[in-house]
């Protein structure tokens, strides 16, 4: 059960935040008609049309301070433009009311992802944990883990429970390493401690050594993570370089 709680919690908060941001906007009628149209959509082109309508009509609305303070952990959902949140909820609506073959929805979403712009790829990744049987979308999440477009990668790696629940150990380790490489804050990875393993500690240790040789700095959170499951011999080596390691 522990494994699932982050996804469940994420989904509840995601929906709540959407509802409350809607209340602060004057886009409730638009949301109603867009989600209605999404319910009827069975092809990528139809959902793309719904998205285009949302993009054209949903006005940018600032989030109130009060609402921001209410969900400190979900600040990234507050920063997302309302129209992107609405597009993601339309997608969720299509998924929930899907009556065709299960496999066909997966194909639809893959096609949508392949033809999406940067912001749309981000919102698809953000809403994955809300979709029914999210393990079906492992391929899309894996593509996001591979991308060079940092905002899309961050939508998966940071504040998103999907990788914790569905990534293999190797995928997980690669994602954490890439997060370190791109300079994102690893503290925002959901399940960082729960999924930690000794292989990852070893690899991070190699990284720390490389950075030390190149006289480059390492965030202290990365060193701490490295030390969580390090073998004794590696820990001894780390201790010798630690005093002159440049921390961030």
């Amino acid at each position, binding site marked *: 059960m522990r494994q699932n709680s982050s996804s469940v919690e994420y989904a509840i908060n995601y929906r709540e935040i959407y509802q409350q941001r809607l209340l602060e906007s004057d886009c409730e009628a638009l949301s109603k008609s867009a989600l209605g149209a999404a319910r009827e959509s069975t092809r990528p082109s139809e959902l*793309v049309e719904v998205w285009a309508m949302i993009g054209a009509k949903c006005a940018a609305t600032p989030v109130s301070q009060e609402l921001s303070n209410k969900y400190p952990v979900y600040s990234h959902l507050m920063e997302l433009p309302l129209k992107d949140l609405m597009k993601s909820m339309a997608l969720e609506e299509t998924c929930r009311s899907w009556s065709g073959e299960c496999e066909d929805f997966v194909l639809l979403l893959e096609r949508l992802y392949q*033809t999406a712009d940067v*912001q749309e790829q981000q919102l698809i990744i953000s809403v994955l944990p809300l979709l029914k049987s999210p393990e079906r979308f492992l391929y899309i999440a894996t593509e996001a883990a591979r991308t*060079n477009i*940092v905002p899309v990668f961050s939508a998966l790696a940071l504040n998103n429970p999907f990788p914790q629940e569905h990534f293999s150990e190797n995928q997980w380790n690669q994602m954490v390493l*890439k997060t370190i*490489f*791109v300079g994102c804050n690893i503290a925002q990875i959901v399940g960082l401690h729960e999924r930690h393993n000794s292989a990852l500690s070893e690899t991070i240790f190699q990284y720390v050594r490389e950075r030390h040789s190149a006289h480059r700095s390492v965030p202290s959170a990365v060193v701490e993570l490295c030390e969580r499951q390090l073998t004794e011999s590696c820990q001894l080596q780390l201790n010798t370089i630690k005093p002159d390691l440049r921390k961030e």
Partner: protein
Amino acid sequence: MPYIDPHIHVSARTTDDYQRMHAAGIVAVVEPAFWLGQPRTSVGTFQDYFSSLIGWERFRASQFGIRHYCTIGLNSKEANNERLADEVMEILPLFLGKDGVVAIGEIGYDDQSDAEDKYFRLQIELGKKFEKPILVHTPHRAKKEGVLRSMDVLEEHEVPPHMAIIDHNNEETVREVLDRGYWTGFTIYPDTKMGKERMANVVQEYGSERIIVNSSADWGVSNPLSVPDCAAVMRERGIDEADIRKVTYQNAIDSYAASGQFNPADWEESFSFDQAELMEGNSVLRGQAPKSGSS
């Protein structure tokens, strides 16, 4: 002074170019979908190309402090492969309604073949459906005839002139295009065709109303700094700053603004970039010292 290059195929340019463009004051670019120097043979390569225009290239430009927009369309050269052209027409609607897509284009004539005519007209109708401006590429051979024919077809399809940009003009075509009310684009080439000096002459003779300067820089011999370079020549000539600003910045905004997707606020206020936030191992920066700045 800020500049916009409203027609440049930046996918074909290097990171050095992006750095020089940013340093020269270019704040935003529009990359029209075109061909890649040789014809594609499957619809999948078109799809990936369009995706890169709204994805990777948009991100790549942002790393250098430049806002990237694009136009989506089937170019005239590749319209001549009709079987493929039909398949491309089918996927265009997947892209035309996206954020940052400021027009349908560049479309029009190359050889002025029947197939080119067919897909030009189909795409004009598609542009009307999506309420997008139309970016018209005019042929390098039989230029004047091609320009006149393009405008005739637009009028046949009842496109209001403020919704179309007729591009790659020269001294022979400028009068007629301006008189008929269209946005009038000029491409500055390094050697032949239209050059900076001649462009300055055009502005001195015809003024700055509805005239737009671009580089159309691509994988061929071309200059991604054509717009700021041309502004410098106009300045030397003593052309009024207000006119220079119009032809190298403001008219580009006004022509694409009808798309609802080209908003100066995107680069004026909210867009500051910090390369330190970006990847070292996987970005185009690859371990270079990050720089900070705002555009």
